[in-house]
């Protein structure tokens, strides 16, 4: 079940006093686009970091793309992250001294997933897919925010990961550009990729299969009380 995300009692505390995420259960199936919303400090970014192995839970289990993320360390974690998940950030995080195509080729290079001779063609095809193939040889700074985010999505897809994790991917874009990016994510989910998107914007839920609301480090009770597996979720269709 490489497309599945499964969280069992995962929690995250800092020192003795502060708990960013209380024990949480969450299941996300293949092809789902789930948005995680909540106020600042609600624990949504912590949850995303735990899913991507950027941070380690202080308790519980997390399985993403068939691996127990909480057990992975060092280069195995890096390798898993490069091959199995695609990360998209609010501020794009493109490497400024590489062209857009080179940015997309970089994950393939680090994880040695495609033949060197095939990498550029794949990068161009991914850029074509996100609609910026004509910008392939530009440096990121020469592109608009929306184009940079598309390039970042293309880079996240470089190693064909089953799971995409996005942290406020539209937070730095205007509404129209943001909508285009969200449509892109919806299309990717429709292809069967599992997507978890952290956002503070509630109206992105129209692109999502489900919305998880976090408050004070806990998944909030849904208004319609549709609890499953002991987890409160709001399903928006």
């Amino acid at each position, binding site marked *: 079940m490489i497309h599945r995300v499964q969280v069992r009692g995962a929690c995250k505390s800092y020192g003795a006093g502060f708990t960013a995420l209380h024990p949480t259960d969450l299941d996300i199936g293949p092809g789902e686009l789930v948005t995680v919303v909540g106020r600042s400090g609600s624990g949504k970014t912590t949850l995303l*970091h735990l899913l*991507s192995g*950027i*941070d380690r839970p202080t308790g519980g289990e997390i399985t993403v793309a068939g691996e127990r993320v909480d057990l992975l360390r*060092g*280069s195995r974690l*890096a*390798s898993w*992250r*490069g*091959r199995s998940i*695609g*990360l998209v*950030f609010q*501020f794009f*995080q*493109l*490497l*400024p*001294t*590489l062209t857009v195509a*080179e940015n997309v*080729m*970089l*994950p393939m*290079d*680090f*994880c040695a997933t495609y033949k*060197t001779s095939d990498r550029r063609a794949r990068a161009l095809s991914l850029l074509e897919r996100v609609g910026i193939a004509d910008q392939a040889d530009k440096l990121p700074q020469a592109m608009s925010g929306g184009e940079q985010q598309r390039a970042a999505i293309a*880079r*996240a897809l*470089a*190693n064909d990961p089953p799971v995409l994790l996005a*942290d406020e991917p539209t937070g730095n874009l205007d509404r129209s550009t943001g909508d285009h990016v969200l449509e892109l994510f919806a299309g990717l989910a429709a292809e069967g990729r599992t997507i978890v998107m952290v956002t503070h914007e509630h109206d992105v839920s129209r692109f999502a299969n489900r919305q998880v609301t976090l408050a004070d480090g806990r998944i909030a009770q849904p208004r319609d009380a549709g609890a499953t597996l002991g987890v409160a979720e709001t399903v928006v269709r």
Partner: protein
Amino acid sequence: MSRLRWRKIARDVWSVRLRVLGMVAAIALSVTLVAAFLTAQSILRREISDNYLAGNPASATLHVPGGVTQKDVVVAKDQPGVMDAIARDQVLARVRVGDGGWQPLLLFVSAPDDPRRLSSVSVEDGIWPPDPRGVFLERTALPYLGVRLGDPIEVRVPGGATMTMTVAGSVHDPGVAPAAQERTAYAQVTTSALELLGRSSTLTELKIAVGDTAGPSGDPAAVEPVAQRVASALGGRVTAIDVPPPLRHPHYGQMTTVGTVLLAFGFVALLLSSVLVATMLGGMVAGQVRQIGAMKAIGARTGQVLGMYLTMVAAIALVATAVAVYPGVLLGRAMAGAAGDLLNLDVSSSSVPGWVLAIVLVAGLGVPVLVSLPPLVRGSRRTVRDAIDDHGSNPAGRVGRLGARLGRLPGLGRTEAMAIRGLARRPVRLVLAVGLLTVAGVAFMTGLNSARAWTQLVQTGVDNRHYDVEVRLAADAPPDGVADVVRAVPGVRDAEAWARIPVSIAVDGRIDTSHVYPDDGHGSFMLMAPPPGTSLITLPMRAGRWLRPGDSDAIVLNTAAITQQAPGTTVGDTIALSVEGRTTRWHVVGIASDFGTQGAAYVAQATAPTTAARMVRAVTDAQDPPARRAILASVEQALDDANFQVEQGLTTDDLHSALDGHVFVLIEALVAISLLIAATALLGLASAQSTSVTERTREFAIMQVLGATDRAVRGLVVTEGVLVGLAGLVVAIAISVPVSAAFAAFFGRSAFGQALPLSIAPAAVLLWTVLTLLGSGLASAGAARRASRLTIRDALAVV
């Protein structure tokens, strides 16, 4: 590593090309120094040996006053361990060119048919042997005396005649120092010339080479017994034996010390520049922390990230080393040439051994990579979370309690308080920048302090002598008579006649053995007996006391005597000295610092083995060197007229010049190197400031939003730089004192057998203060200008 990653490295480097240029320059500069010193040292070590050994120097010289016969030579050659033997002689004479004054001239005498295998010199001009009135001058004596081939010179031998001789040729004798340095001319003549000069043509020295089939022996313990055996075989006619340190040039020790010191400074420079590179790269990596996070987020492992940055350092170091090797070798060759001139060596080959290039390559590549490793590892190990959390809100660290307290010190203005707190936010960087300036300052001040210590030592050596001119006699003279003659010379205020006898440490059953070199200077040991209550010399005592009236067997040794002749001797010991074949026993009552002479032992005139004078020292009215030289000429003339056998005359100016000639090249090199180190340190400070400004771009923008003027921002950055300079200055001054003392002790003892005094040069402190404060201000000026020119929009856009 893939081409893609290479491309990223190349573009990253290009994006900060000025900083990288600074790194390359700093490493290249220091690698140049290391390459130069290693090259010079390798060439000199080889050439000094080759030159010295090419002359096949004798292992020992046996003094046979009755004359060395052909049979003696054969007997010597038959002794086990003797490879070769030859009869020679040497006479200390005087030379005069035109109407000039008399100058010391050491004549090396050999038979016209001498095969010149042993203790040989290479003829550079002329055909040996010359006619009886011909003299072959050592090549450095030609410019010293201002003569050319074919010119006439007047030569006078003590107790002999004055004869006009012709400069018939020139030789190179690598065993003697340049004439100008020793204030003595060296020359080769035949026994026929000696006869014409009124001396017996009988040769009185037997030179032997000791060794086996493997070659000449380098072990003094092996040479001495063989020499003693030869002396016994000659039936008790040998009165003394000279065994100089075998196979070692007289200046070998000095050169080795000098080379080591210079090399150490070179490596300090390399280490500093590497620290500088590490600082710069640390800053660069700090600026790329989000990129590192992004790379890790897309699958890069720590090793891959580290590999990229290490490749960058290695590439920078490689370029710097490649740039530095050739100039370094050229500089090293030039230095070897200059040192060769100083030592009177022919540098026949400037080829650089492979190991030198290997060390330069390993050092140039290895040191920067190793020193850069910690910040690079730290940077590459940043987790994705760290990197992503780094929003630039507090990139320059926290002020901390100490910074906050310092910033509240009374009397501080707002700018100074902010500058202190700004610096306290990066304590490691602060320590590094202060450390760089400290090391540079310590090197700079140690160099200048050493120069001052040397000058002081030389000056003290001269000041301890309250006489102006000294005349040595070749034969015994009545003390009163000779002193009276000198006192009668116009311009002479007072004169004293001293006994002066060559001695050696006596060992029962052994013929006197000394360690003097054939130039009769290096390694010599003299017993001197000043008149009671002498006013012409006051030596500072290192231990014990000076001679007193009523002393019966008291002796005062100088430090050179302790080092060269009787190591380990202390006050209270009894020492046995052989004087003209007789063993005399003395009680050591004092050890005197007597810089400027070779080994010397002082005893009271009343207890001296002889009452005869062999030296006159005089105080004159002369105020300058030419006047002193003129009076010396008059003194010599008066003594000649009174039939005293003048051997050598010199003024204290000659002593001064001879001592300075040995060392000032080193001191100048030290100061030059410390200036380079200072430049490296200031480059480091500029880099640290630049990094700090990059990190605090947003902060400066906020300051501007709040109304800070460009000038205020500039002032803040420059104040930070000057504060770092000030801290580095204070620490450097404090540390330079013990370091200068240790260096002076090490250098003095290694090179001259006597520690240089601790001397703090106020000029060095002042100069370094100006250099540091001005330099740190200027080093920060670029960063300050950049900080003040940032537009608020651009600055706030930086994340």
